[in-house]
C-alpha cells in the first residue's frame, strides 16, 4: 500500500498566492475563471440549465405519447413547422428523443455531474490549492459551453436537430436523404460532440494528474474519500474511452461529407436510387460507439456512487461498510466496463459467438455492483440516520440502482435480449439504473456540498418535498414501462395508434405522462430552492454536516488557494464516525491519532509498527491504571 502513496510536492511554492491578492475583474472572477470552485459552479449551473431543457423536451414527447390523436394549438404556436396542426411531426418527435438522450447522458450526467463534483471536490478533499492545470480546466468548461450552445442551436435550423437516436447509428445518420434530421442537424451534433469530447479529455487528464500528484501530506490513496476514488476512476474511463468515439465520429463525418464508405454498403434509397457505397460496415460504427457508450454509463453512475457513499456515511454517522471492497468494486467496474460493450449489439447481426462472450463478461460486472449495494445496506444498518435532503437523495439513488440494476440481468442475457432488445423494457432499465440513479446522486451532491459552493444552506423542507415527489414520480414513470416492454412495445415509436395490440397501453402512457409532468413540476421546488438559497439561504457554518473530510476545514468564505495558511496534514481515513471511545461522533481526517488515544484501534496502525507499539503501551498503562483503581 505504501508504494502507492505519492508525496506532495506542490505545497510550498503555492504559499505566496494569498498574501498579496490582486483584485480580480468580473471577467476573470466569474467568466474566465481559473479557480476550480468557480469552474465547478459554472459546470453545475450549465448542467442544471441543460437538464431543465432536456426535461422539457421529454415532457413534449410524453404529451405526444399520451395524446397521439389530440391537437394542441399551443404547440404550433411555439414550435411552428415542427408541430403542424398542433401535433408533433413524427420526425421532430425523433429529434426530441435524440436530443433529450444526448443532453441528459453527455451534457448533464457526464459534464454536469463529473464536471461539478470533480472540480469542486478533488482539490478540496485532497488538500490541494487548485487543479494541476487551472488553465486547462477553464478551457474544458468553455469547450463544454460551446458544445452545449451548438447542440441547442440545432433547434433553429431549417430541418431540425439530429434525430437518429442518441446512438446515431449509420446509415440513418450518414445519409441526409434518409431523414430530415440527418442533414445539417446531424452535422451540428457531430461538431458539438467533438468539442464536448475535447472538453472531457482536458478535464479528465486534469483530474487524474491532480489526484495522482497533488495530495496533501499524509493523504495516501487509501485515505482518499470514496468520492475522489470514484471521480478518479471515472476520469480514467473517460480518458481511455472518449477518444474512440471521436474516431467513430470522424469516420462518420468522412462518410457524410467526403464520399467514403466506412459504414455504408449496398444502399438503395427510396426504392430506386442505387448508392455507390461498397464494402463498409454499419456494425463497425456500433462497435466504436459502444466502446465508448458502455464505459459512458459507468462514467455517469460512478460519481453518483461515490457521492452517495460519502453522503450516506456522513449521515448514517457510521463508516462506510467495506471501504476497501467499495474501492475494489469500483476498480472492477472500471476494468470490466471496457469488455462488455457488445451486449448492446446481441441482435445487430454481430457474430453470435461474440454475443456469448459478451454475455459472460456482462454478467460478471453485476458482481461488483451487487457488492456495492450490499455494502450500502450494511452502512445503514445500526446507523444513526439523519434525514438531510442529501441523504434522502443518496438513498433514492440506492433504491433506483437496485431496481434498475436487476433488470440488467435480463438484458445482459443474450437469449433474453432477443425479445427485449429496443423495447420499453430497455427504456425502463436504463432510466432507472443510470438516469434516475445518477441524477439522484448528483442532487444528493448538490444538497450536500451547496454550503461549500455558496456558503449558504439550502432549505431542507423544500428538499424533502422535492425528493418525495421526484422519487415517487420516477417510479411511477418507469415501473410500468417494464410491462410495456414485456408486451413487445418498441421504443422510439411516435405513436402506438397503428397497432391494435398496442392501443391498450394508451391509458398507461397517459398515466406515465402525468406522472412525468408531476415530477417535472417538482423540479421547480429545487430550482427555486437553489437560486433563492444562493442569495438568501441560511448562512452555513464551517462544517454543517459534522463531516470528516478535508473540504470542511476550509473557511466558508472562498479564497483562492482554499486554505488561508498551511494545507492541513491528513492522519486518518475519512470515515471515523461514531468511533467508540471518541468524544464526538466524528473525527476529522486532520486529527492525529496521538490526540485520540482513547478511540484508537489496533487496525488504525496497519502500516505503522511504531504507532502500534505506542498504542499497545498506552493500552497497557490504561489497564494498569484500571487495576490500581
Amino acid at each position, binding site marked *: 500500500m505504501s508504494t502507492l502513496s505519492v508525496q506532495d510536492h506542490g505545497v510550498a511554492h503555492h504559499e505566496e498566492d494569498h498574501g498579496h491578492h490582486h483584485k480580480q475583474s468580473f471577467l476573470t472572477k466569474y467568466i474566465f475563471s481559473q479557480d476550480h470552485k468557480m469552474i465547478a459552479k459554472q459546470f453545475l449551473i450549465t448542467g442544471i440549465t441543460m437538464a431543465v431543457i432536456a426535461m422539457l423536451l421529454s415532457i413534449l414527447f410524453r404529451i405526444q405519447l399520451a395524446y397521439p390523436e389530440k391537437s394542441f394549438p399551443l404547440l404550433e404556436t411555439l414550435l411552428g413547422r415542427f408541430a403542424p396542426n398542433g401535433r408533433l411531426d413524427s420526425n421532430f418527435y425523433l429529434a426530441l428523443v435524440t436530443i433529450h438522450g444526448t443532453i441528459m447522458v453527455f451534457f448533464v450526467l457526464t459534464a454536469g455531474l463529473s464536471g461539478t463534483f470533480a472540480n469542486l471536490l478533488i482539490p478540496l478533499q485532497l488538500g490541494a490549492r487548485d487543479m494541476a492545470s487551472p488553465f486547462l480546466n477553464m478551457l474544458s468548461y468553455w469547450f463544454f459551453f460551446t458544445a452545449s450552445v451548438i447542440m441547442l442551436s440545432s433547434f433553429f435550423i431549417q430541418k431540425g436537430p439530429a434525430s437518429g437516436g442518441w446512438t446515431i447509428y449509420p446509415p440513418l445518420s450518414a445519409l441526409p436523404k434518409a431523414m430530415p434530421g440527418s442533414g445539417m442537424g446531424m452535422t451540428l451534433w457531430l461538431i458539438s460532440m467533438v468539442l464536448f469530447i475535447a472538453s472531457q479529455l482536458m478535464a479528465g487528464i486534469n483530474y487524474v494528474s491532480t489526484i495522482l500528484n497533488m495530495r496533501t501530506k499524509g493523504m495516501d490513496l487509501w485515505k482518499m474519500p470514496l468520492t475522489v476514488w470514484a471521480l478518479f476512476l471515472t476520469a480514467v474511463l473517460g480518458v481511455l474511452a472518449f477518444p474512440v468515439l471521436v474516431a467513430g465520429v470522424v469516420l462518420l463525418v468522412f462518410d457524410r461529407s467526403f464520399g467514403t464508405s466506412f459504414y455504408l454498403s449496398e444502399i438503395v434509397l427510396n426504392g430506386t436510387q442505387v448508392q455507390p457505397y461498397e464494402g463498409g460496415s454499419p456494425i463497425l460504427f456500433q462497435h466504436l460507439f459502444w466502446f465508448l457508450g458502455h464505459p459512458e454509463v459507468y462514467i455517469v453512475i460512478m460519481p453518483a456512487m461515490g457521492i452517495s457513499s460519502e453522503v450516506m456515511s456522513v449521515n448514517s454517522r457510521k463508516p462506510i461498510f467495506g471501504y476497501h471492497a467499495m474501492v475494489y468494486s469500483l476498480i472492477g467496474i472500471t476494468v470490466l466496463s471496457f469488455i462488455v460493450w457488445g451486449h448492446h449489439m446481441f441482435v445487430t447481426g454481430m457474430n453470435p459467438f461474440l454475443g456469448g462472450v459478451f454475455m459472460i463478461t456482462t454478467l460478471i460486472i453485476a458482481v461488483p455492483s451487487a*457488492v456495492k449495494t450490499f455494502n450500502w445496506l450494511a452502512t445503514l444498518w445500526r446507523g444513526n440516520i439523519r434525514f438531510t435532503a442529501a441523504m434522502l437523495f443518496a438513498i433514492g439513488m440506492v433504491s433506483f440502482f437496485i431496481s434498475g440494476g436487476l433488470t440488467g440481468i435480463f438484458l445482459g442475457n443474450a437469449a433474453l435480449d432477443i425479445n427485449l432488445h429496443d423495447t420499453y423494457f430497455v427504456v425502463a432499465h436504463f432510466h432507472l439504473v443510470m438516469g434516475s440513479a445518477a441524477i439522484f446522486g448528483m442532487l444528493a451532491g448538490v444538497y450536500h456540498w451547496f454550503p461549500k459552493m455558496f456558503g449558504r444552506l439550502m432549505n431542507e423542507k423544500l428538499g424533502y418535498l422535492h425528493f418525495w415527489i421526484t422519487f415517487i414520480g420516477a417510479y411511477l414513470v418507469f415501473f410500468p414501462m417494464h410491462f410495456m416492454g414485456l408486451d413487445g412495445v418498441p421504443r422510439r415509436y*411516435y405513436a402506438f395508434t397503428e397497432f391494435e395490440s398496442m392501443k391498450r397501453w394508451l391509458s*398507461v402512457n397517459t398515466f406515465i405522462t402525468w406522472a412525468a409532468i408531476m415530477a417535472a413540476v417538482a423540479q421547480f421546488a429545487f430550482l427555486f430552492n437553489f437560486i433563492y438559497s444562493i442569495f438568501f439561504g441560511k448562512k452555513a457554518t464551517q462544517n454543517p454536516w459534522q463531516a470528516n473530510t478535508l473540504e470542511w476545514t476550509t473557511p466558508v468564505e472562498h479564497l483562492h488557494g482554499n486554505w488561508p495558511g498551511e494545507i492541513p496534514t491528513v492522519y486518518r481515513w475519512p470515515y471515523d464516525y461514531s468511533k467508540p471511545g471518541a468524544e464526538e461522533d466524528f473525527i476529522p481526517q486532520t486529527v492525529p491519532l496521538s490526540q485520540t488515544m482513547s478511540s484508537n484501534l489496533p487496525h488504525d496502525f496497519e502500516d505503522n509498527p511504531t504507532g502500534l507499539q505506542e498504542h499497545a503501551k498506552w493500552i497497557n498503562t490504561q489497564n494498569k491504571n484500571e487495576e490500581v483503581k
Partner: protein
Amino acid sequence: MGLKNLISSKKMLSLLAVFMLLSTNLLFAQDAASSATTGAGDAGTATGNVWIGPVYYILLFIIVCFVVAIVGKILRVFDLTQQIQGKKPMNWHNIMGVFCLIFLVAGLYGAYWEFTVQGSMILPESASAHGVKIDEMFWTTTVLTMIVFFVTQILLFTFLFRYRYSEKRRGHFLPHNNTIEKVWTIAPAIVLTILVIFGFFTWQEITNSVDAKGEPASINVDVTGHQFAWELRYPGADGKLGKTDYKLVTGLNKLGINFKDKNSFDDLQADTMVLPVRKSIRLNIHAQDVIHSVYMPHFRVQLNAVPGLPTYFKFTPTITTAEMQRKLGDPDFQYLLYCNKICGGSHYNMKKVVKVVSEAEYQAWIAQQKPYLSGALKKELQFAATKDAQQKRLALNN
C-alpha cells in the same frame, strides 16, 4: 424577545390561516374554471386564443406554489410556537422515517398491483420452439431477481425507519467484516454463473442453427426492410431463392433479383408472411437503405436488418394463428412482424401480418402467389442486359 416573537408569530399564524382559506377557495374556483375551459376548449380552440388553456395551468401551478409556501410557513410558525412554549421542535427525522415506511408499504402494494394487473398484459406464451426455452429462462431470472428486489428494498426502507436519528444513540462502528463481504461477493457470483451457463447454451442453440446434414431443409423466406415497409420473397417449387444484387434494383425489380440465376425464375412475392406450423423456417434478413429490425415478439424472434450484411434467424412456429386466437379468446388476434430499430419518420408504422397455418393451408396459399418475374419485368430485362454492361465499364474505370 421570545415574547415578542410569540405575539408576532401568532399574528402571522392567523393571517396565514386567512390567506390559506382564501387561496383554497381560489384554487377550487380556478380548478372549476380551468376544467370548464378545457371542456369548452375543444369547441373554442378554432377561434379562441391558444394561450388560454395553458395560462390556466400556469395559474394553477402558481397557486400550488403559494399553497406550498403557506403550508411551509404555517409549519414553521407552528414549530416555533411549540419551541417557545418549551416543547420539543418537530422531529423531522421521525417524520421522514415514517415516510420511508409508508413508501415501503405503498410501494410494495404498488409493485404487487403492477405485477398482477399489468403483468397479465404481457405477451402470451411463446409461439415458437426456441421461445419456450427463452421463456423458461425469463421466468427463472424473474423469480431470482424479484426475490433480491423485494429483500433489498424492504431492508433498505426498514433500516431507514429502524435506525432513524436519535440523540441518545450512536452509530455502530463497523468498518468492515470480511466474512460477510465474501459471502455476498460469492453468492451473487454463483447465481450469475448459473444464469450465464444456461443463457450461454440457450443462446448458442438459438443462433448456431445452420441446417444439419440429415435434417430436412428449412423453408427459406427472404424479408427485406426499406423505408417504410417489408418485402417478402418465397422460393418457388425448387425451394431455392435466386441471388440478389443491390445494383440491379429498379422500380420493377425492387429487390434487385439477379435473373441470370435460374433459381430466381420461380421466386414468389407475398403480402402476408404465411408460415406452416411446426416446420423449420429460415428468415433471410436484408435491408436496403438503413438499419431496420425484424421483430416478431410472439415468436421471440428479433434480428436487425443491416444494409450490406445479410443475416438470418431460424425458428419453428408451433402454434397456428387460429389456435392462438382461441387461446387468447380474441378472434382478431394476429401475429405481427414490425420494425424495432429507429429508421426514420414512419418507423412507428412498419408492420407485416404473420399467419401461421397448417401445412395444407400453406400449400394452397403458396400456389396462389405470383412470381417476381412479371411480364413487365421480362420486358425490362432485355434493356437491363445493356445497362449492366455499362455499369461494369464504369466500375473498371474506377
